[in-house]
């Protein structure tokens, strides 16, 4: 069934809201009253979707129907400043969530499929532990993008996260599989302890990128503040997969002017404390 539901926030709340229910699966086949009655947690009390949002069930948007995700699971369209709404799109398996505005933390966490598009900013733990699907954020994201919650050995295990703006610390930390790409800059400890997968930072990355990584690739298109002493320099070359990844990123809407598909990279192996099978690729073209 093809559903297109639009929720428009009337007034942003002054307390954090747990919004686990805001995933397409909760909306499919429901009428306006059912949707309005879906639960949210405002601070420590239960409220409903209707307490905050104007609910509209729209005819299938032919534009949205173009994407495979929306055809399969319907589209949930959220409008307004949802920066205090946490857990939007958490555990979604299909369909598409489009947010015109910003979202709070844990957006798309544990996602297994579908698409989450945020035309605004995202909070911490964006796509944490996600295993499939794709997330696109037009603005910036907080800390722990695609990372693991405390105690887990692995964070994200599949899918892709694409951030056009900046990201905070620990981008892609403990990544097991998948792609995290940040167009802008990021904080410390990008790809910390990653097991495999790809983390790409377009802008400035701060310190300790790739620290304790086991396998996988950290691609830095802008020179970082420092490279961990536990990485060993290899050589300068153009990795054979880079043109392929470059094209793939372009498909996701991430363009890096000045970084060509034939760009050459300084290659480092590390972290030697964890076996040294990971790599940092440091783009040379950019300067």
């Amino acid at each position, binding site marked *: 069934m093809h559903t297109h539901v639009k929720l428009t926030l009337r007034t942003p709340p002054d307390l954090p809201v747990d919004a686990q229910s805001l995933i397409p699966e909760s909306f499919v086949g429901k009428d306006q009253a059912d949707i309005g009655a879906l639960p949210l947690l405002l601070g420590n009390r239960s409220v409903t979707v209707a307490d905050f949002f104007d609910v509209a069930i729209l005819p299938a948007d032919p534009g949205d129907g173009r994407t495979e995700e929306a055809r399969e699971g319907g589209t949930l369209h959220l409008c307004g400043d949802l920066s205090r709404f946490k857990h939007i799109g958490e555990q979604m398996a299909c369909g598409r969530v489009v947010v015109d505005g910003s979202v709070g933390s844990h957006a798309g966490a544990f996602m297994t499929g579908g698409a989450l598009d945020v035309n605004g900013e995202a909070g911490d733990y964006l796509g944490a532990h996600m295993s499939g699907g794709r997330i696109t954020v037009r603005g910036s994201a907080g800390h722990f993008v695609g990372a693991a*919650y*405390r*105690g*887990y050995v692995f964070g994200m295990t599949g899918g892709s996260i694409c951030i056009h703006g900046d990201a905070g610390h620990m981008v892609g930390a403990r990544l097991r599989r998948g792609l995290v790409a940040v167009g802008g800059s990021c904080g410390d400890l990008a790809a910390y302890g990653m097991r495999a997968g790809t983390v790409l930072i377009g802008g400035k990355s701060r310190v300790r990128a790739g620290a304790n990584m086991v396998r996988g690739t950290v691609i830095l298109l802008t020179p970082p503040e420092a490279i961990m002493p536990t990485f060993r320099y290899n050589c300068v070359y153009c990795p054979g997969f880079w043109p392929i990844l470059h094209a793939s990123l372009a498909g996701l809407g991430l363009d890096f002017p000045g970084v060509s598909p034939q760009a050459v990279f300084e290659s480092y192996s590390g972290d030697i404390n964890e076996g040294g099978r990971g790599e940092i690729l440091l783009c040379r073209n950019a300067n």
Partner: protein
Amino acid sequence: MLRIVNGRVHDPSHGVGGEVRDIYIQDGRIVSGEGLDPAQARDMETLDAAGCAVLPGGVDIHSHIAGAKVNSGRIMCPEDHYGHVRAATDVTRPGCGLIVPSTYETGYLYSQLGYTTVFEAAVPPIEARHAHEELMDIPMLDTGCFAVMGNNYLVMKVLNDPDPVRRRERLRGLVPWLLRASRAFAVKVVNPGGVEDWKWNAGAADLDTPTPPFGVTPRQIVTGLAEAVDSLGLPHPMHLHCNHLGDPGNVETTLATMETLSGHRTHFTHLQYHAYGRTKKGGFTSGAARLAEYLDAHPEFTCDVGQIVFGNTLTMTSDAPMEFKLHKMRGAKWGNCDIEMEGGSGLVPVRYAPKVLVNAIQWAVGLELLLLIKNPWQVFLTTDHPNAGPFTAYPEIIRLLMDADYRRSWLEKLHPRVRRRTVLFDLDREYDLDEIAVITRAGTARRLGLSSKGHLGAGADADVAVYPILSDKAAMFSRPRFVLKQGELVVRDGQIVAERTGRTLCVAPEGYRQLPEDLAETFAGCYTVKLANYMVEDEYLRRPEVVPCG
């Protein structure tokens, strides 16, 4: 008064094996229904146990539920808690965790399985105050703890005394003092000498490896402490975790320890971990049959199994060197804590997988012990929670014991070579409900010396578990119809309906009231706390109950 009617009562202590009987309860105790006016009985609050088995409340002889290392385990494994949560209700507080549950959750989960008494199996005296603080926050259960002494400096100093008479006498003074200092219930020995050895960076201790600084051997430690425990008449014998836990071929060490201790009442804990033979290439095989044979011939010995449960868990033991070995082997997280002059402890998360040969053998060895040891009063059900698995797996293990077909159905899930290394799949024995009652409550209570627990005779604590009789024994034991704690209904249909505070069980044998001067001086020389601040105060015991020594 309250009565439980129409249930099939399994009270092996009194030879009652499934007969329909009514149980009467008054003031938290079981009372005799004889001579009761039928009219009076009708007016009583009545629980209908038709179609149910009525058993004494469960008594766990060895579990890790409170204290420094358990709490470190909680900190180490937040990921265990996220998916296992209990929201507050009108009668319960919130809780979380499965492998290392929070204190309230521990009480609730045990109670929901029909357990009413649980012992924390390893508490170093200097950290006993912490263990008691946590025990105070475990509802639903009577609890107690065992004080670890196998690597204690003062104990070794006394054992080093060349004069055997004086040595025995001083040990008979020191052991009660340590029990009182830690308000403990029994004497625990963990890898005697081996932990101290490790602090010296030495290899694993054999029975006759001299332990620095005195050169006391593990053999001397276990015999000395076993003698002391015997002569003090402690309700529970020495609770021994042997050397070489987990090593292939360790059954030789275990048998040698048994020979040394033959004639002394001893409880060998998590024997599964000490029952491995060795192939020519150094691989694991089962040594369970040899140990079972030995136990069959030695009624003074008992054991609990420490049955492996497949899945994730966290090992935690005072056997610090073993934990470090495990950490290096698995590349897993590791926590360690050396406890001043008394021992150590370590923590490593593990996953037991049926397709891993060693794990499959461990799993089979535990079941073999349970099935090969003839007398159920000598072998008890534990998972050494959470080392071999969480206690919440007890119903599943009971099913494995009661249903041979189900047990055999596991063969295909296991590593294929397990068949050659064990005899489990040649065993047809099936436990009946009475035997289950023995290994989970009657036997453990008796071995702990708790005369008012583990049975349903008049005068017993009214700790009762009522299970619906189902063909799926795992389902039966995982959702009791009723659980009563001290005569009050606390669980109905598997759900907590009331919270009750249990008692703390401890002992008070005669011994040193104060340390003799030389030991006090030693204490001052090696401890960083003052003697005056060492003994656990009365404030840390909720509803204390002193179990008398024999």
